[in-house]
């Protein structure tokens, strides 16, 4: 090809948009889900969790990717979602769907109250503050036994469903979770490609530049934080309803590290990154589990390789092919 690539008059098409490569990745993820449905077995649980973490990461991507702020404490909101669902369903006999939505509302209010003072911090300070938020929540779930039942956790949380119809089969649970993930993804697309989404992404590009153009930076950061919290809470609830049992470890600091890894493997700030990262990382854990003693090392090696050779994550690899073609 000799014609310069930049003369195309078609509407925008570049790395940060929804390019064919990313659509292809989504297709692969869908195939993985379909394959799992056929294959069944333990893989069903793995993919169920991948879908749940995908929901979490889509939210996290709003705050860390689009807005460019660090948060290591979103697991706190997943915790609110999970325990909210557990307590409302087990103690008070609520409908799972209602419990999920109510927990999201609670998580949103908490995000507003916590985010308002916290988001004045920047960079490392914000990272530390959010990390401690996750730790504090973890401690509360252990110590406040009257409400959380401490290490015992909650068992017997009912699966999702409407009225008398409940989704009991593991296969149908995966289908429902995949559909919910798709719905969450669709919502995220709409928010991203709008005046609001552009404002967020401008903040990560240059806070000063965004402010000079009238973007209300503190407010936008807060809204992104709340969106991340709502997704995290939904993911926390989904976990509770899918697995049926929760305990403090589920929503501990390890969850923050795991979702962080997923987001970076998939591509922080990319459109499909959260989903791809969640699926790839979840499957990867199962693959390396087979290597016995070397499981953690194998896992670390794969992650390091991704971060070194694909620092923008798997979803941004499409740009690599494109550049080669144009050269």
């Amino acid at each position, binding site marked *: 090809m000799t014609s310069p690539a930049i003369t195309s008059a078609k*509407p925008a098409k570049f790395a940060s948009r929804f390019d064919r490569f990313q659509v292809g990745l989504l297709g692969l993820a869908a195939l993985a889900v379909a394959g799992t449905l056929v294959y069944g077995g333990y893989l069903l649980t793995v993919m169920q969790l991948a879908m749940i973490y995908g929901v979490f990461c889509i939210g996290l991507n709003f705050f860390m990717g689009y807005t460019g702020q660090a948060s290591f404490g979103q697991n706190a909101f997943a915790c609110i979602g999970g325990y909210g669902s557990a307590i409302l369903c087990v103690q008070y006999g609520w409908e799972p769907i209602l419990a999920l939505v109510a927990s999201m509302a609670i998580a949103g209010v908490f995000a507003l109250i916590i985010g308002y003072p916290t988001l004045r911090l920047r960079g490392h300070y914000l990272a530390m503050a959010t990390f401690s938020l996750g730790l504090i929540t973890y401690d509360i779930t252990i110590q406040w036994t009257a409400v959380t039942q401490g290490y015992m956790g909650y068992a017997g949380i009912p699966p999702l469903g409407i009225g008398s119809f409940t989704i009991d089969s593991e296969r149908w649970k995966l289908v429902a979770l995949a559909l919910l993930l798709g719905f969450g993804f669709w919502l995220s697309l709409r928010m991203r490609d709008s005046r609001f989404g552009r404002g967020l992404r401008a903040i990560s590009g240059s806070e000063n530049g965004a402010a000079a153009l009238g973007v209300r930076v503190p407010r936008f950061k807060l809204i992104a934080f709340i969106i991340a919290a709502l997704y995290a809470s939904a993911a926390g609830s989904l976990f509770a309803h899918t697995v049926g049992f929760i305990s403090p470890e589920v929503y501990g600091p390890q969850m923050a590290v795991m979702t962080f890894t997923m987001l970076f493997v998939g591509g922080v700030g990319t459109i499909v990154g959260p989903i791809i990262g969640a699926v790839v990382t979840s499957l990867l854990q199962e693959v390396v589990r087979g290597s016995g003693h070397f499981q953690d090392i194998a896992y670390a090696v794969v992650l390091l390789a991704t971060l070194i050779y694909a620092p923008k994550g798997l979803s941004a690899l499409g740009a690599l092919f494109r550049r080669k073609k144009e050269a």
Partner: protein
Amino acid sequence: MALLRTTELTKRFDGLVANNAIDLEVPEGSLFAVIGPNGAGKTTFFSMVSGFLSSTSGSIEFNGRDITRVPQHEIAAMGLVRTFQLVQLFKGMSVAENVEVGCHLATRGGVAASLFRPAWFRKQEREVRERAHELLEFVGLSAQADLDAELLPYGQQRLLEVARAMAAKPKLLLLDEPAAGLNTQETEGLAHIIQKINAQGTTVLLIEHDVALVTRIAHRIAVLDFGRKIAEGTPDEIKAHPEVIAAYLGVEEASNA
């Protein structure tokens, strides 16, 4: 009528007086320039006017309203939009998207509108894209619209920043050393665009290092030196002003003059 008026505007950084009681009136519709040697306090002045930095004392009036203590986003919303000496492009967004962000103030709608997409919102999004396209054409960057903004050469990044600021439909456009780092040809192109912007009715306040450029395009020039305004007048008056010559060429020549 003065669109922008500063009265005794002062900024102290501890012992250093960066801006000392600066009085300035920028008439509506004019192309006004502030010049001065390095460290004269030009950028400090600019930052105070745009609400980026708070002043120590004195007042700023824009479009008949006191904006001395008004937050930055409100100042921008009133129609006073600035560019930066160090280009502040939005990395990770395309050239066109950068300009689309510029339309932020001229548009409305938040999360709810983006989720439900009512008719007015879809229409507005279309208009934003059209406006971005027009502005890119205006500065001559329409061929690069889909490119990642980071990949633009420096001179074009400057033009993009101007286009982005214009998307906000400013009454007063503040340009902070827009020609810094540009070659002669690029400076020429930029000067032409600034003049066009002004001719279309936008008041322009320009900070510049390049005296030749300023004396050619500005209607009126104020000169800062060591935080004080030492002269103001038409380009011809400024070129002949003894204190200006002293500030730029050294004191001895001035005492001879």
